[in-house]
């Protein structure tokens, strides 16, 4: 079956620009997660959705980062006024229920590599 997909696979932008990264979770998965992964590091939690609502956004580094999931399926991570330090791979994952975020098996997408010049 189809897994988690993310678009674009690569995004190059200039400092100060706005970007949107898209995640299509596995159909039927109610929980969706965004992570950021820098080179040589493990994924770093950003935000978690249960359905349409952000159940935990404590990982977002500042107010330039925002994410939505208006219909409880596709999610978009939005970054305003990008900075060079935002360069990383942004990973999306989904899980079936999300009732136990740290216990549920998460299915990851391939990520979007963001480069801010």
């Amino acid at each position: 079956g189809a897994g988690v997909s993310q678009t674009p696979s690569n995004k190059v932008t200039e400092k100060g620009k706005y970007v949107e990264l898209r995640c299509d979770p596995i159909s039927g998965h109610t929980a969706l997660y965004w992570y950021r992964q820098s080179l040589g590091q493990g994924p770093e939690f950003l935000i978690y959705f249960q359905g349409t609502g952000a159940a935990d956004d404590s990982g977002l580094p500042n107010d330039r980062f925002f994410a939505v999931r208006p219909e409880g399926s596709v999610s978009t991570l939005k970054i305003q006024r990008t900075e060079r330090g935002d360069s990383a791979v942004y990973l999306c994952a989904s899980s079936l229920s999300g009732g136990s975020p740290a216990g549920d098996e998460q299915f990851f997408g391939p990520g979007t590599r963001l480069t801010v010049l």
Partner: protein
Amino acid sequence: LAKTTQPISMDSYEGQEVNITCSHNNIATNDYITWYQQFPSQGPRFIIQGYKTKVTNEVASLFIPADRKSSTLSLPRVSLSDTAVYYCLVGDGSSASKIIFGSGTRLSIRP
């Protein structure tokens, strides 16, 4: 938050059993222990999860001692395709923000 400590890297040979140990001294009563595998240019992939004692699936085994302050992922008879980064996670099932991947263990398998 329960922090994990793993070896930065490990080397082994095809056909060998590989054991990767993760320390989590501050593990809480409700925390699960989960291991993920990540290949280059891919997202992590769930391997195994446990709470205590031993768990085995078709891919690996997870050994957890009684005090739960550490856990060991065991990969039987590794092949070149097992070359990847392995992450140990310790998390309270109630909170997504407590999912901490750490830096992982880079496992290299040689012929």
